[in-house]
C-alpha cells in the first residue's frame, strides 16, 4: 500500500471512528470512572471522592440490585425461549408457504417495526380494558403483559432470522430423506434443526443480548412495579442515576449491565465471525 492509499484510508475512516469514539467509547470509560467514585448530585458538597470498588461492593450487598438482576434473568429466559419456539414455527410456516409469502412476511414483520413504547402501551390497554388494572397490581401477574408484549414484538425478528437460515439449507437433503421414507417430524429433527443450528444460536445470543438490557417495555407497562416486583437491572440503574441522582452508584450498576452484555456480545461476534468464515469456505 502506498502513502497515498494510506492517507485515503485515514480520510475515509477517521471521521466515522472519531464520532464513535466520542459518543460511545469515551462515555463508557467515563461511566467506569464514575463507578469508582462517590458522586451524588444531591450532595454536591461532598465533591467526588475516589472510593475504589466500594460501589461494586455495595451492589453485592444491595438486595434490590440482586432482585433486579434476577428479574432480568427471568425475563431473558422466558421471552427468549418463547420467541424461539414461536419464531421457529413462524419461520417453518413461512418457508413452506409458496403463494403470498411476500404479503405474509410483510404482515408478520409489522409488530417488530412498531415502536416498543407503542406496542407496550397497546398491550397495557388490552390488559386493562376489560377488568381495569388488576394485572398490574399483582407482583407475579404483572409479568404476563410484559412477556406477552416482548414476545409479540420480537418473534417476527427471530422468525426472519431463522427463515434466512432455512433458505440456505439445500432442499435436496430434505427430498432425499423424504424419498427414504422419513416423516416430517423426523426430517425436522434430524435434518432441518441441526442445519439450522448456527441461525438458532445467533438468534438466541442476539435476543438474549437485547433482552438483557430491557427497558422500554417495562418502563411503559409497569414502571418496574408493583413496588419493584418487575424492575429489571437497566430500570434500577436508570432510576438510581436520574431519580436518586447517585451517579457513582448508578454507574456501577450500569457497568454491570455493560459487563454482561459485553460477554454476550463477544459470543455473538465470534458466531458472526464464524458464519462469515463459513461463507468464504463454502
Amino acid at each position, binding site marked *: 500500500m502506498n502513502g497515498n492509499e494510506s492517507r485515503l484510508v485515514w480520510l475515509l*475512516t477517521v471521521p466515522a471512528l472519531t464520532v464513535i469514539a466520542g459518543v460511545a467509547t469515551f462515555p463508557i470509560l467515563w461511566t467506569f470512572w464514575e463507578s469508582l467514585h462517590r458522586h451524588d448530585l444531591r450532595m454536591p458538597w461532598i465533591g467526588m471522592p475516589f472510593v475504589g470498588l466500594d460501589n461494586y461492593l455495595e451492589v453485592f450487598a444491595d438486595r434490590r440490585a440482586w432482585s433486579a438482576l434476577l428479574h432480568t434473568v427471568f425475563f431473558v429466559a422466558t421471552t427468549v425461549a418463547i420467541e424461539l419456539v414461536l419464531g421457529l414455527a413462524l419461520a417453518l410456516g413461512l418457508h413452506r408457504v409458496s403463494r403470498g409469502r411476500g404479503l405474509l412476511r410483510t404482515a408478520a414483520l409489522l409488530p417488530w417495526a412498531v415502536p*416498543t413504547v407503542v406496542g407496550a402501551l397497546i398491550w397495557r390497554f388490552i390488559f386493562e380494558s376489560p377488568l381495569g388494572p388488576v394485572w398490574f397490581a399483582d407482583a407475579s401477574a404483572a409479568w404476563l403483559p410484559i412477556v406477552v408484549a416482548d414476545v409479540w414484538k420480537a418473534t417476527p425478528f427471530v422468525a*426472519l432470522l431463522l427463515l434466512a437460515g432455512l433458505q440456505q439449507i439445500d432442499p435436496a437433503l430434505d427430498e432425499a430423506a423424504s424419498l427414504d421414507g422419513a416423516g416430517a417430524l423426523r426430517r425436522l429433527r434430524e435434518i432441518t434443526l441441526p442445519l439450522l443450528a448456527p441461525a438458532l444460536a445467533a438468534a438466541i445470543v442476539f435476543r438474549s443480548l437485547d433482552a438483557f438490557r430491557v427497558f422500554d417495555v417495562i418502563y411503559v407497562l409497569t414502571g418496574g412495579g408493583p413496588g419493584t416486583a418487575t424492575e429489571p437491572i437497566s430500570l434500577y440503574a436508570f432510576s438510581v442515576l436520574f431519580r436518586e441522582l447517585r451517579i457513582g452508584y448508578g454507574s456501577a450498576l450500569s457497568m454491570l449491565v455493560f459487563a454482561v452484555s459485553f460477554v454476550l456480545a463477544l459470543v455473538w461476534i465470534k458466531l458472526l465471525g464464524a458464519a462469515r468464515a463459513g461463507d468464504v469456505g463454502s
Partner: protein
Amino acid sequence: MIVTPAGRRLAVAGTMLLVTAGLVPLYFALVSSLGPEARLFEAPSLRPDRIVFDHYRALFEHRDFWTPIRNSLIVAGATTGLALALGAPCAYAIARLPFRGKAWILSGVLAVSMFPQVSIVSPLFLVLRTVGLVNTFPGLVLPYLTFAMPLSIWLLVGVFRQLPAAVEEAARLDGASRLRAFWSVALPLARPGLATTAILTFLYSWNEFLFALSFTLGPERHTVPVAIALFRGQYQVAWGEVLAGALVATLPIVLLVLLAERRIVSGLTAGAIKG
C-alpha cells in the same frame, strides 16, 4: 421441500394464525381509537359500531401532537443522514482498501453496537449539560449516533463487499482516483444498499426511547415515543388519545414496511445487529 397437500394446508393455516395473532392488537387499537370515549372500557369489540375521530382531533388540537412528530422527523432524519454520510466512506475503506487492523475496527464497531444504552446515558447527559445541548435536537442526534453509526457501517461494509469490483477497477484503469471510484462508481451502484441502511437507521431512530426520555425536558422537544409514554389524563390515562397517538406513530413505520419489506428483511438478516 416436499410437503403433502394436507401438510401444506396445515402450514398455511398455522402461519396465517400466527401472523393474524400479531396483527390483532394493532387492529384492536385502531378500532378502539376510532370509537367514542364511552366505548373504550366496555367489553372489547373487534367491530366498530360507530366511527368518530374525537381522539384524533383531541390529539392534534389539545395535545399538539404535530410537535413530537416534527421533532421525531428532524431527529431521525438528521441521524440517518449523518450516519450515512460518515458511515459510507468508512465502510467503503473497510470493504475495499487494503489496510491493517480492519478486523479489529469491524469487531470494535460491532461491540459498540451492543453497548446497553443505560451504561452510557449518564456521561452523555453530563457532557450534553456541560455544552448546553440538553433539550436540543443536536443533543439527541449525537447520542443516536451511538447506535446509528455502527449499524450503518456494519450494513454498508456488506453492501460494498457485494458490489462487483470489476466496475471500479475499470474506472481506475481509465485513470480515476480511488476517491473518484468511490464517489462516482461505488456509491451510485450501492444505492439500493444505502436505501436499506437509511430505512433501518430511520426506523431505530424513530423508535428510540431511553435517550429521548433522558435528554429532553419538555413537550417542545419530546419525540413521539416519549410524548405518548408521558400522556396522562387528569385522573387516569387518556387511553383514547394514547391509542390515537400510538397509531399515528406507527403509520410512517407501516408505510416503510409496506414499501420496503424486502429491503428491511435483507438488511435485518445481513446485519442483525439491532433487535
